[in-house]
């Protein structure tokens, strides 16, 4: 009804960005565990075989091997699905990478329910696990620009980094690169604070437009740096809203950004009301991304419901209202990040 969508989709942004970054940094090595094309590094493998190490379907060895490469002064980028970077090789991650603070860059693809592969493929607890590991840094990408800047951001860290990387066709929501430790302030309303990261940010942006038309003043933060985290800046935002805070994450509500915000509120004794949307102490199953986000309650419509709960108001927003959101508006509101 509003004409063609204005949101720009970028194809395989990681493939291009990694190749460019790696070629400019000779101590960066590309490691893969039998998911090379799935992690968009097949072109790199073919063009730069001397910089590419196939380590086979053997993540425990890959993790310790990467620790050894780190000891030799290299900065290995490990490519596989996120779930395979911490479940099977957890002990190796601790002993060979995290404890000695090796400059190992863990590029975790298909975060949360972005894969239809079901429980074995869905990294729904990765942020929780990584947050509890001393010396670990955690980054999450929410759009093509963040994917394009993830290599440089990760490689700037003096220690190990875990990254949630989006692949395939990725929307461009932001015009500026990841700035480590800086949250994006997408809107600065005064009723509710919405905190999102990864793919939930786009959903929240979609809902925000309709919410604002209903007179709800939304303050929206997007997190790309999950650990370390600037709680002072977050507290200022928490204190600036009337009704409370909603987190929405492509992850369990335990241990991820919901917990991060809860800890921040509790530590400061702020007493602000908090609603956490995400997977609630449950595994997911295999299915499409929109279906799963809806089914488990962390899409735009779920956010509207959460805000209604928090404000104790019926906003009379239907799913059709959300579908009709002009994507151009999504795009232009993203430009407000400089606020």
């Amino acid at each position: 009804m509003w004409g063609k969508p204005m949101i720009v989709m970028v194809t395989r942004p990681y493939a291009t960005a990694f190749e460019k970054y790696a070629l400019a940094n000779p101590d960066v090595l590309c490691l893969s565990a039998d998911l090379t094309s799935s992690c968009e590094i097949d072109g790199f493998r073919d063009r730069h075989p001397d910089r590419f190490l196939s380590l086979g379907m053997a993540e425990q060895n890959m993790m310790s091997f990467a620790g050894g490469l780190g000891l030799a002064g290299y900065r290995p980028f490990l490519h596989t699905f996120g779930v395979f970077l911490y479940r099977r090789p957890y002990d190796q991650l601790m002993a060979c990478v995290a404890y000695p603070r090796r400059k190992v860059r863990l590029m975790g693809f298909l975060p949360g329910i972005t894969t239809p592969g079901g429980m074995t493929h869905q990294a729904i607890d990765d942020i929780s696990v990584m947050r509890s590991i001393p010396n670990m840094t955690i980054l999450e990408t929410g759009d093509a620009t963040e994917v394009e800047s993830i290599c440089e951001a990760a490689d700037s860290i003096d220690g190990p980094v875990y990254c949630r990387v989006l692949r395939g066709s990725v929307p461009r929501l932001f015009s500026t690169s990841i700035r480590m430790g800086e949250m994006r302030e997408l809107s600065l309303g005064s009723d509710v604070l919405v905190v999102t990261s990864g793919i939930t940010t786009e959903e929240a942006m979609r809902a925000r437009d309709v919410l604002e038309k209903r007179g709800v003043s939304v303050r929206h933060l997007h997190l790309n740096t999950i650990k370390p985290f600037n709680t002072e800046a977050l507290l200022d935002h928490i204190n600036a809203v009337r009704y409370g805070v909603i987190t929405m994450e492509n992850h369990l509500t335990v241990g991820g950004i919901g917990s991060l915000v809860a800890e921040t509120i509790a530590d400061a004794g702020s007493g602000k009301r908090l609603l956490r949307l995400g997977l609630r102490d449950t595994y997911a199953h295999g299915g499409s991304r929109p279906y799963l986000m809806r089914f488990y309650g962390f899409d735009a419509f779920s956010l509207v419901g959460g805000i209604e709960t928090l404000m104790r108001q019926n906003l009379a927003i239907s799913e059709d209202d959300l579908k009709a959101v002009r994507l151009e508006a999504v795009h232009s509101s993203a430009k407000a990040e400089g606020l």
Partner: protein
Amino acid sequence: MKNRQATEDIALGIRRRVFEHTMRNGGGYLSQACSAAEQFAWLYNEELNLGEPTLPMVPKPFTGVPSATNVSYHTGAGYNGPAEPIYDRLIIAPAHYALVAYATLIEVGRMAPAGLEMFNKDGSSVEMIGAEHSPGMEVHNGTLGIGLSTGAGLAFGRKRRGESGRVWVYMSDGEVEEGQTWEAVQAAAYHGIDNLFAIMDVNKQQCDGAMESVMSVGNIARKLEDFGAVVVEIDGHDIEAMRRAVKTPHSRKPLIILANSSPFRGMKFLERRFPRLHYVRFKSEEERTEMNAAISAELGIAPIKFNAS
């Protein structure tokens, strides 16, 4: 720092030190000294190309774990000399051999005997299970199976940089029960990592007892070869055999020396304790006194003076 003493004498010195320590402290990793003494003595006295130690003879106390704020942190690798391109690096995969490793450092003049007095004391860096910051250690290895993978990664990186120094991994046979060991061997062979060397103490013991009573692992040599390593089997107490074994050509493959050893070697009295050899404790003061007399005589020293517990 090589060859000031005969390697055989260093091996004897390692056994004596570990025995003395065990007697005085009411227990210790004694059988590991029996099986591994010649291997450690050979590595440190002959085979490893190491520079002068860069850390004080008397180890510093524990100074904290690695963190962004612990800027003065360093590992215990300095006891093996500086990490320069020409020098070899040693990774001791079964960190439970730490007591043997510390005794070796003392015997070859890289650590003061006072270092062993700090063993397993609160606030000390000379930890019971060797930590990254413990003398002679460069990485954590208390969790078994990760050492060879780490060594393979380090060796690949050093080869890529054109460094002449080799990477040595000290291994134990129990580690072959960990699947990661096989992942490491296949990766090292696939990537032609031939600056990677390992010597495995095949003493057929593990924590629960004799390996055969815990898990059958089949023919280790054949399995390692099938996964792509060059393997030499030797008598783990025969230093001349070690000298020959390391000369085995192994182009584009890691070389793994299987050192078949006895967990009682030099301390026959320990045979009575079989199969509980992993960590020797005394069941009674009588046993302690009896063991003291018997093993001291075998090692050619006066019985150890200790305070009864």
